[in-house]
Every structure is written in structure tokens, then in C-alpha cells.
């Protein structure tokens, strides 16, 4: 596949049993581009993001992320991708700092980056709190810190505005204003980003709507 595209899908299919959640998706994101992925519930937005995050294997078709073909080069792609899913993907029984230290170890990131990441999302003073004790908005910010801890070139965000508090919106806006990163945002609130001029792709029944 073309290495000039940061994200590329050709006839991507992902099945769960007999049901095709993705049924021939064609999508390409240029390096540094931000795209809004919209569509009704069950259209396949989350499944597409999970395939691109290498959490799910494609059933058929060609996929490449950050120039790495999936699933063959998934491990290399993972180091270049940041993924914030529906759930914050942090351990409630670990402190905020401990969660990021764990992910820093998994991504091979310098432990010193943890303090910077927490400060960036406004959680430096809550670093010692258990993640389970944080508010939903704070958890979302911690999730953003986790997803960007390793400075990924490709960022995948699934409903990033859900339950985000005012400070979280500022954090998200600052994050999305950073240049050079390719970002795919699955959202039910495309109007929230209406003034950005980003391309919008709509999924319907597992396909890109014409």
C-alpha cells in the first residue's frame, strides 16, 4: 500500500461471526490530516478504530497505519498509534501516575514523560489519586494523557467529547491544534468541530457513505 498515506484502508472487512461490522471500507488519511468519522450507532465507527489501533484483526482487505501493513507489521504500527476508546483504559485500582507509568513501560517511554503528560492534562495535582476516585471528566483527561504519552504520529479518538468537562475540552482543543499528527475522530457531535474545516467521512452499515 502507499506509504504516503498515514492511514489507508482498501476494501476493509471485519466480521463478527456471520455479521460484517465493516463491509468493504475504503479510507485514506494524509499525514497531518484530521478527519471526523460520523454515522449512526452500529455503523462500524468503533470497529474501524479498533482495527486501526490493531486491537482487532481485519477479516479481509488491506490496511496500513503509519506506513505499516496490518496485521503483519502490527507491532511496529502500535508504537506509532495512540488510541483513546469508549472506556478510559486505565486501572481504577492504580493511581493516575501509576497508570501512566505502566503504559510508559509498555510503550518504552521515558518515565520522566509521565509528569509532563499529567501536567499537560491538568492532573498534576491528582497524580496520587486512584483512577477509580477520579471524576468521569478527569478520567477522560487521563485517557487523553495515556493515549498521547508516547507522542504518536497517528491518533484515534472514539467519542472524545463524551463526558468531557470544561478543562477537558480545553485539553482536547489544545491537543487537536498540534500540527503534524494524523487524527481520526469518531464522533456523534461533528458540529462541535464545525469551524475547523476538517474532512468528514460518514459510515453507514459498515461502508463509507457516498
Amino acid at each position, binding site marked *: 500500500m502507499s506509504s504516503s498515506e498515514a492511514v489507508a484502508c482498501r476494501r476493509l472487512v471485519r466480521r463478527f461471526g456471520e455479521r460484517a461490522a465493516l463491509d468493504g471500507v475504503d479510507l485514506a488519511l494524509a499525514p497531518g490530516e484530521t478527519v471526523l468519522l460520523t454515522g449512526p450507532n452500529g455503523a462500524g465507527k468503533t470497529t474501524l478504530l479498533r482495527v486501526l489501533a490493531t486491537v482487532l484483526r481485519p477479516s479481509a482487505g488491506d490496511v496500513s497505519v503509519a506506513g505499516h501493513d496490518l496485521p503483519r507489521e502490527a507491532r511496529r504500527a502500535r508504537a506509532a498509534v495512540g488510541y483513546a476508546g469508549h472506556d478510559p483504559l486505565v*486501572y481504577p485500582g492504580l493511581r493516575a501516575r501509576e497508570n501512566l507509568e505502566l503504559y510508559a513501560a509498555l*510503550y518504552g517511554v521515558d518515565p520522566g514523560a509521565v509528569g509532563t503528560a499529567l501536567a499537560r492534562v491538568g492532573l498534576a495535582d491528582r497524580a496520587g489519586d486512584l483512577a477509580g476516585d477520579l471524576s468521569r471528566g478527569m478520567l477522560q483527561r487521563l485517557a487523553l494523557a495515556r493515549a498521547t504519552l508516547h507522542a504518536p504520529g497517528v491518533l484515534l479518538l472514539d467519542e472524545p467529547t463524551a463526558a468531557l468537562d470544561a478543562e477537558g475540552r480545553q485539553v482536547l482543543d489544545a491537543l487537536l491544534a498540534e500540527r503534524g499528527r494524523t487524527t481520526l475522530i469518531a464522533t456523534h457531535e461533528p458540529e462541535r468541530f464545525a469551524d475547523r474545516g476538517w474532512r468528514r467521512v460518514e459510515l453507514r452499515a459498515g461502508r463509507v457513505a457516498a
Partner: protein
Amino acid sequence: MNGRAFRALVRKDLVLEVRGREVVPAMAVFVLAAFVLFRFGLGGETLAGGTRAAVGVLWIATVFTAMLGLLRGFAAEREDRLWDGLLASPVDRASIWAARTVSLLVFQIAVQVLALPVFWVLFLQQGRTPSYGVLVLALLLADLGMAALGALVAGLASTARAREVLAPVLFLPFAIPLVIVAVSLTTGTIPPQTAGSHTVTRLGFLGLYDTVFALLGWALFEYVVEE
């Protein structure tokens, strides 16, 4: 294997257990309750089969206790839907399996430190001390095998719907050879039996068992947890 990631994953499991106290207390209560039930239900060495039957109780309780631990294996990842976080990271899946194996091993050893003295008091006659060196080695090798197998089964069961049914069905048949050899080995350490050449052979079998399931876990875990 990524050593830093492995250590971070083990630390995570141990910290979560120390704070949550979900697995080890449950395993300890289970094994002690099993000993008491067997003791008063069947008798100690006075029951038919004598020492061998008593040792059988020890190993059966050990296997079922290990199963209880593996049922809680990856519980946080399943209940808090954290698998995506681990799977999206570039850590090799063998590190995840190895870290879980070490955690389960630590939990089992912690429980046995408490349970073994109770077993001796309840089941063995006074003055019948075993060969501690052989017994400890047998327990460590058996625990390692059960932990390696248990981590693999826990990974498989964590993504399945009927995990409470699936885990025992997968775990117990593979634990049978381990129990057979461990019972023979342990019985041989308690007088009037004497440890002979069979001891080395049986310890070798346990080592081989550990090696086989370590290799299987190492090689297969990626396919077990990735959809």
C-alpha cells in the same frame, strides 16, 4: 521479551492484589475450608489409603485453589474493559502471559505458606515429618506448571462468555498428570517411605511439564487474546 514491560505488568498485578485483596484471601479461605471438610468428613491418615489419600487431599485442594486464582486472572482487564489498552500497546503478548504466570505463582505460594502447616496438623500423624527439600521443590515445580497453564487458560477464558465453565474444563484435564505425579512424589517424602530414584524422575517430569506449558503459553498467548 521486554523486561521493563514485564516488571511493570507484574507490579501492576501485585499492587492491585495488595490494594483490592480479591484473590489471595479467597484462595486461602477456600483451601483451608477444603482441608477442614476433608479432615472431618474423611479422617486424616486413618482414612482408607492412609498417607497417600491425605497427600491426595493436599494436591486436589491445591489444584482447585489454583483454579480459583486463574478464574480471577485478567479480571480487571475483563471487568473494566482494559484489554484494548494492553493490546493496542506494542508490548509482546508473551510478556503479558509471563507476567500473569508470575503473579499467579506468587499468589499460590502465599496461600501455601499459610495452608501447608494447617495440612500437616490436620492430616499427618505426629512425628511424621516429610523431606522438606523434595517437598518444597515439588510444590514450586507444580505451582509453576499450574501458573503457566493457568495464565494461558485465564487469557482464553477472559474473552469467552461462559468463562466460569470454560476455565475448569480447559484447566482440570491438563492438571491431571501433574496431580498424579505430585501425589506420588509427595507421598515418597513422608516416612516410612523413602525418597528413591523415582524422586528424581518425578521431579524431572514436573520440570518437563513446566517447560511444555511455558513454551505453549509463550507461543500461543498472542493467538489466545487477539481477535
